[in-house]
């Protein structure tokens, strides 16, 4: 297990995600939602959260199973994923080919004062993803691993899980809508042309 946490999420998340415009993205609360709201200017192809902790991966799974014609990306943090880590097992049995999960793992609960999470104390979420039968997994700890991970995220014809280990540098400051109903309506109008 590589314990290094050297990457700055403000560089690494955009580098792995690339052009977000052709993705449907569900973001877990706090840092991950800020990362992607900043990257997309709070776009209508993203659904961000500020609550419902532990729900991002399951929401992305529901979206991916419903829209096999679209690539769905879940971006979430280590703390958010740990709250419902069993969802990785549900992803692992369904294996939608259009679903990728990017876990931005800073080893801390950044939103609540940077208390250590379990991943800072030896828990390896990539190993849990592998044990959950997710077919393709990666851990990214250095800049030279980013390009290959970006290819996995975008082009793998199987469910994939990328653990991105980052430093405790904060996510970008961003103003975003925290109105879940407004976000839902905007997302559906952009995707479906309907409320």
């Amino acid at each position: 297990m590589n314990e290094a946490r050297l990457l700055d999420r403000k560089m690494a998340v955009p580098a792995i995600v690339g052009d977000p415009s052709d993705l449907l993205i569900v973001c877990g609360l706090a840092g991950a939602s800020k990362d992607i709201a900043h990257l997309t200017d709070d776009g209508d192809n993203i659904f961000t959260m500020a609550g419902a902790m532990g729900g991002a991966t399951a929401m992305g799974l529901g979206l991916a199973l419903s829209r096999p014609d679209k690539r769905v990306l879940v971006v979430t943090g280590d703390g958010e994923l740990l709250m419902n880590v069993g969802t990785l097992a549900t992803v692992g049995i369904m294996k939608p080919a259009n679903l990728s999960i990017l876990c931005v793992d800073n080893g801390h609960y950044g939103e609540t004062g940077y208390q250590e999470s379990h991943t800072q104390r030896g828990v390896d979420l990539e190993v849990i993803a592998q044990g959950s039968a997710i077919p393709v997994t990666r851990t990214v700890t250095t800049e030279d691993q980013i390009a290959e991970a970006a290819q996995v995220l975008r082009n793998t014809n199987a469910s994939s899980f990328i653990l991105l280990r980052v430093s405790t540098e904060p996510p970008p400051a961003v103003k975003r809508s925290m109105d879940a109903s407004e976000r839902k309506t905007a997302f559906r109008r952009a995707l479906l042309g309907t409320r």
Partner: protein
Amino acid sequence: MTTEYGAAVPWQEDLFTLLRENDVNLFCYVPDGGHKTLINRSIEDPEVISVPLTTEEEGVAMCAGAHLGGKKAVLLMQSSGVGNCVNMFALIKGGQFPLVTLVTMRGEFGEMNPWQVPMGTAVQPVVEAMGMHCLRAESSEEVGPTVQAALNMAYKSNQGVAVLLTQKLIGAKAF
């Protein structure tokens, strides 16, 4: 009640047909004897995506995700599962997402397992406290109209609705 707990019963066959006629094609469930027929039909139907969950709250978020993609879903659980969902119901209320969950009740009429009683008793107040609706079906004749009402409230009015398939309907598991 003379019905064996979890036995195949005609109203569950009719319920599956009703859900399919309403274009519900994502079935999320935690296994339960009271939903046995519905779960088995969902697995057998090639047009249906049938997803076993590790915990019921996954299903709440999955149903919301399906709605983002323009598809209809249903969440099947036992009354104990409602307790596992409480914070995730905030996504339904706050996002005005449609949700239909069919809850087989334990811990009420004729219950013989005391462990089921606390959560069974709490289901309706908990669901309503989270801003969702509870509809009860006490007899096989009530199931179809009640579930149709729930689907209409959810998908026409953006409401979260729990249909309680009561123990009078399902029977009490023998201990």
